[in-house]
């Protein structure tokens, strides 16, 4: 976890300055996280060389040098996902891609945009909205989060219910291999089966295989009418509602069971909160279809005695912005992957632990995706560890998994971020070895077998 003593960072800086120019290379302290919001206290602070990249050729230059000299390189954008996994053996170079931030090609009629890795999701959505389009993904992330970082960590949010995840929207990537070779996989077309679907490998690879410098993204029309319905009730009633929704023809694009207090102060007043849980149900169809969906939900609410609130247009947007901003403030995030109908079963014992602990914990459970998240704040490390172990014990019976998406390095050192990995683990290591034989890219940042040699 320290800087590599055999690497002289002054020498690294000197060599890179000669290639790229002085103004791109600086030496700085690094604590393994870029976000000030996380507890720092000098944890594993060490020196690194930061290289600010402006062209993909510069990425290639750095990687070639790194391969030649055995330097360890961490590609970073805004650093907003660095808390997702700890950095194992440490790094020598931060490959800062935030200035590689051009929109290369945007063709609204093709519903495809090609962006460089440093383009932020916020800026991209703004541009797309002027053409009434969107990237249909809504991970909980800071406004500065870059597409490169979000793709590399396969970040996702509630919209995966209706639109899927990065693996469904990235049509192709341009990557730089550790060898310095620049390669294109996939493309700008909707359907493409030429060769292996290499693009999938890089999505969610945490920067351990190659540096993504450009991505081709499939877009969707911006829903002209937005409508979100929240329904509160007893847990047993919400379970029934979940089943009714799955068996209905309704078209929710987001369908989350959320701790009601996530929406407290801002969306729902205290007097509007009647139960600890609510279902938030989105409709991105046109106004007539949304009205129908809402009327159907109203009927069910009446039948079951659930309280219902309807948000339209800007107020629906506000609800989800509030969701994002509120959850961003939590410093501990666990992702549960399990059959949607089993989510409730896993959550109950976790609620019990939270109930007896100092601090706060809220949930957001994808009612058709089976992706549930626990967001914690002010929890002791002991409680965090207990939550992880408890959740892993519970899901293990059902072939589910529990991943720590956000935590301080302390916990990540003690408890494996990814948990048990399946019988395919040897092949993950072999893929890593085939693409990055010298292990220069993000060493130790990935699943169990990816430890630094």
């Amino acid at each position, binding site marked *: 976890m320290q800087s590599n003593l055999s690497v002289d960072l002054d020498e690294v800086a000197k060599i890179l300055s000669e290639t790229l120019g002085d103004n791109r290379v600086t030496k700085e302290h690094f604590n393994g996280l870029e976000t000030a919001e996380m507890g720092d206290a000098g944890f594993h602070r060490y020196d690194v060389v930061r290289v600010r990249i402006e062209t993909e050729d510069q990425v290639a230059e750095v990687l070639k040098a790194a391969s030649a000299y055995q330097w360890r390189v961490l590609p970073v954008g805004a650093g907003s996902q660095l808390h997702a996994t700890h950095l194992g053996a440490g790094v020598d170079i931060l490959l800062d891609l935030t200035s590689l931030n051009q929109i290369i090609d945007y*063709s609204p*009629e*093709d*519903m495809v945009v090609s962006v460089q890795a440093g383009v932020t999701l916020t800026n991209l959505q703004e541009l797309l909205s002027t053409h009434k389009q969107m990237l249909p993904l809504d991970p909980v992330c800071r406004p500065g989060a870059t597409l490169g970082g979000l793709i590399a960590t396969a970040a996702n949010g509630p919209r995966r219910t209706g639109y899927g995840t990065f*693996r*469904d929207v990235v049509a192709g990537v341009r990557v730089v291999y550790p060898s310095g*070779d620049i*390669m*294109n*996989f996939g*493309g*700008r*077309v*909707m*359907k*493409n*089966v*030429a*060769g*292996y*679907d*290499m693009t*999938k*490998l890089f*999505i*969610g*690879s945490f920067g351990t*295989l190659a540096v993504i410098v450009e991505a081709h993204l499939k877009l*969707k*029309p911006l829903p*002209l009418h937005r409508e979100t319905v929240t329904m509160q009730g007893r847990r047993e009633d919400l379970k029934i509602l979940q*089943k009714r929704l*799955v*068996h*209905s*023809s309704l078209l929710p694009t987001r369908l989350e069971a959320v701790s009601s207090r996530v929406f407290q102060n801002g969306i729902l007043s205290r007097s509007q909160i009647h139960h600890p849980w609510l279902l938030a149900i989105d409709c991105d*169809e*046109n106004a*007539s*279809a949304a009205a*129908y*969906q809402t009327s159907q939900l109203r009927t069910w609410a009446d039948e079951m005695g659930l309280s219902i609130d309807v948000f339209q247009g800007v107020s629906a947007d506000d609800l989800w912005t509030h969701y994002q901003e509120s959850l961003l403030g939590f410093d501990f995030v666990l*992702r549960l992957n399990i*059959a*949607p*109908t089993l989510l409730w079963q896993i959550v109950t014992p976790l609620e019990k632990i939270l109930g007896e602990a100092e601090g706060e914990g809220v949930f957001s459970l994808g009612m058709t*995706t089976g*992706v549930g998240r626990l967001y914690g704040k002010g929890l002791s490390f002991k409680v965090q560890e207990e939550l992880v172990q408890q959740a892993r014990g519970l899901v293990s019976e059902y*072939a*589910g*998994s529990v*991943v720590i998406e956000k935590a301080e390095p302390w916990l990540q050192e003690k408890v494996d971020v990814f948990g048990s990995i399946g019988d*395919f683990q040897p*092949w*993950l290591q*072999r*893929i890593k070895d*085939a*693409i990055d034989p010298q292990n220069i890219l993000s060493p130790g940042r990935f*699943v169990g077998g990816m430890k630094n040699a």
Partner: protein
Amino acid sequence: MENQSGTNVLVEPTNPRDMRGKVKLSKAELVNSLVNIVGVHRVIHEPDYLRVYECDGYVARNGLPSAVVFPETTQEVAEIVRLLAKHQVPFLPRGAGTGLSGGATPLNGEVILNFARMNKLISVDLDNLRAVVQPGYINLTLSKEIDKDGFFYAPDPSSQSSSTIGGNVAENSGGAHCLKYGVTTNHVVAATVVLPTGEIAHIGTPFGDAVGYDLMGLFVGAEGTLGIVTEITVRIMKKPEAVKTVQAMYDSIAQASDTVSDIIRAGILPAAIEFMDKLAIQAVEKSSYHVGYPEDIEAILIIEVDGLTAGLEETTDKILDICRRHEVRTVKMATNANERALWWGNRKMAFGAMGQISPDYLVQDGSVPRTRLTEALARIQAMSRDAGLRIANVFHAGDGNLHPLILYDSANPEETERAIQTASKILKVCADLGGTITGEHGVGLEKLEEMRYVFNKTELEAQLALRKVFDPQNLCNAGKLIPLP
């Protein structure tokens, strides 16, 4: 399925290879070893019976397998593969053999693992929107099975009444409705696989995101070169409440393809937009699925939208309006399910109907950005004139996936060669227009050389390096998908 043309030269089965001093099995020993695993009734080895397996839906090249074996369980598949790997006998998996690019054609005397007996639906979980199937299970059977509960499996290749889900996984099959619903890779979430070394692994995850690199994503579309899927978990969906189908006839190809762009620009996401040109229409009108299209129209669009009944009329009104703005000759909506079924039957018959107007045809499936469709079609027309060959176009216009059908007579070797050359040129044009050489039919044997239009040497080497991770001995469907640099 016997080869009836008699013009194809059968390749003699090569003996199992003898490399690195490993024990070489004689054909008899090989067959005996296979019989030991699965029993005598599940191994075919007599040349007359092996001929059925000399090629798949791509008939231009063929070869005889060493044997065909019918496993029934993952364990049997693993045992067979371990045996073959140990003796370095090449092998390949085969579903229904409907592939269009030669992915299941044995050119190295492979042992074929035929999945006809692994054709069960293992489980359905409607509440969690998942089904688990064996690889030999037929695509359409799944949708039929869950139809009574109002669910369906979205990927719908035209071959769906006979092609298997295992084969669909290998090819990453698309279909008419993937404009809205995506292709196979978007619907396959987990699988049990037997790797080319005979080891068993469980990849992907039924729910959420798998831990580690996306091996499931890598396996879909790998054309059976990285391993063999033996159990597949797929996502199933609730059927849309309502469907509306629009048929629009045009006097100009350009107006038809501009209509497609305008529909998308208007923020409408149809479930499907299908295009047929004049020659294709003439062919299908001679088939049993004739709709009664006028002979002189240049293009037809079939546009389908689905969703909640309440919002559909608004959407179809917009579509009708866009069609009219593009000088459509006539545009109408299907008035009932029978009419819709006729229009679709007519469209899905198109490949087969080519037999009505030509002794043979070659089908390609290059893909271009939607906005380049008009240009691509014009260039295909020019190539048709230059080559003196008729080319019909039937394709998924919504996602820019072309299906030019090049008509020729295989009795004329010179014309055959000209047809093959023209097909390759069309793929070059697709690549040059920012598209690719195959949208859904796969590379297989057919488009190996054309891979160089879209990948440079380094990119091909990178893919071969990945293949080697899984298949170090190069035994599993070797020679397909990626050309040697």
